[in-house]
């Protein structure tokens, strides 16, 4: 369903990786590992269509994502290194905006439910500037708990800054998404207690 063919990436004239390829089927997880600066974030940004690869292409349902454009972004959920949370809006407003921006609409109860799933329901009316790093991360990841999320999740270091409880909650969400036939690509340094069957979880070393 998601296929990368001989991807190559260069940053600042320095090659990061080349001839990278993989194929992911529904219900499978790809965990990208590698040292700092090995190109994990760049790979995710290429998959999200934000960065152009130096060579190769990414295909979604058999078509190059460059040609699919909006149709591909509708089926993809990308959460990058920066949380993408506006300091001057409340946690609930941020989630509501992110949801509407992705083309969905969520009722107040669904927003509250998603925040509850990340354990930050009581922060809903608080402006995001008062959040800690980990809470901010949770606020960004609350999108994962909204009903009708996109089938492909691209998560850059989703567990960074999260405590054990937060890691467990996010891992459970990823597990449920995989069980429902979704795809997850994530970068992470730590071992993650994902409930995916071993056959469905691949690891990519950069």
């Amino acid at each position: 369903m998601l296929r990368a063919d001989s991807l190559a990436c260069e940053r600042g004239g320095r090659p990061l990786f080349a001839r990278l390829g993989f194929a992911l089927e529904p219900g499978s997880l790809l965990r990208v590992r590698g040292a700092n600066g090995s190109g994990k974030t760049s790979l995710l940004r290429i998959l999200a269509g934000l960065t152009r690869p130096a060579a190769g292409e990414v295909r979604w349902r058999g078509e190059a994502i460059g040609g699919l454009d909006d149709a591909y972004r509708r089926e993809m959920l990308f959460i990058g290194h920066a949380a993408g949370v506006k300091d001057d809006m409340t946690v609930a407003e941020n989630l509501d905006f992110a949801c509407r921006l992705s083309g969905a609409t969520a009722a107040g109860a669904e927003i509250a439910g998603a925040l509850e799933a990340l354990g930050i329901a009581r922060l809903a009316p608080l402006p995001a500037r008062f959040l800690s790093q980990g809470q901010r991360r949770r606020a960004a990841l609350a999108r994962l708990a909204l009903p009708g999320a996109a089938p492909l999740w691209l998560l850059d270091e989703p567990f960074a800054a999260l405590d054990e409880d937060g890691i467990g909650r996010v891992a459970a969400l990823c597990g449920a998404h995989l069980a429902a036939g979704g795809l997850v690509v994530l970068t992470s340094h730590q071992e993650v207690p994902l409930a995916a069957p071993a056959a469905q979880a691949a690891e990519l070393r950069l």
Partner: protein
Amino acid sequence: MGAAFGLVVARELRLALRRKGEALNVLVFFVVVASLFPFGVGPEPAMLQAMAAGVVWVAALLAAIVSMPRLFAADLADGTLEQLAASPHPLAVIVGAKVAAHWLLTGLPLALVAPLLGLQYGLPADALGVLVAALLLGTPVLSLLGAAGAALTLGVRGGGALLALLVLPLFVPVLVFGAGAVGAALSGINPGPHLSLLGAVLAVSCLVGPWAACAALRVALD
């Protein structure tokens, strides 16, 4: 598409409401700059009336430049620009919405305050009307071209000064036709042609501005 446009405009307005100071600063800057000139050139009524339109327009250009650098920089810093670019809406629509919101928050208030400054310079009523009409047509151009400049200088150190150097020359036609319209009204000539030309500049900027800003944003995000 229309929904995404409305969504982003509403978000920008809400954010501005939470930070009233920022939009207000631009307006105060505009008034202060335009009010400084009489102190420098003296209280000669005929001279003040003749230079009124030019002064108001130059102050409007400077105010637009002052407000521009933050248009995309704040969104880049907190990662929301990335989210906007990864959303299933054309980037041009999102940029267009940000530009529209910028104009509502800076250009429109400038145009509404301008008659006050015009009175200060002793402009007659019909010239005041032309001044407002010209500002309403011209300030969107400042937002549109300024957005392209802001996107081009995104992430550049000292981008503010570079932005001014890049964009101010592009504002010259707006300045010429905008001030020209008021000048024409003052000397009893029909200001219509000047306003039409301003409208033409606006039409061209509507086509070029968002497109250029999108291309520059893609490079900045790459």
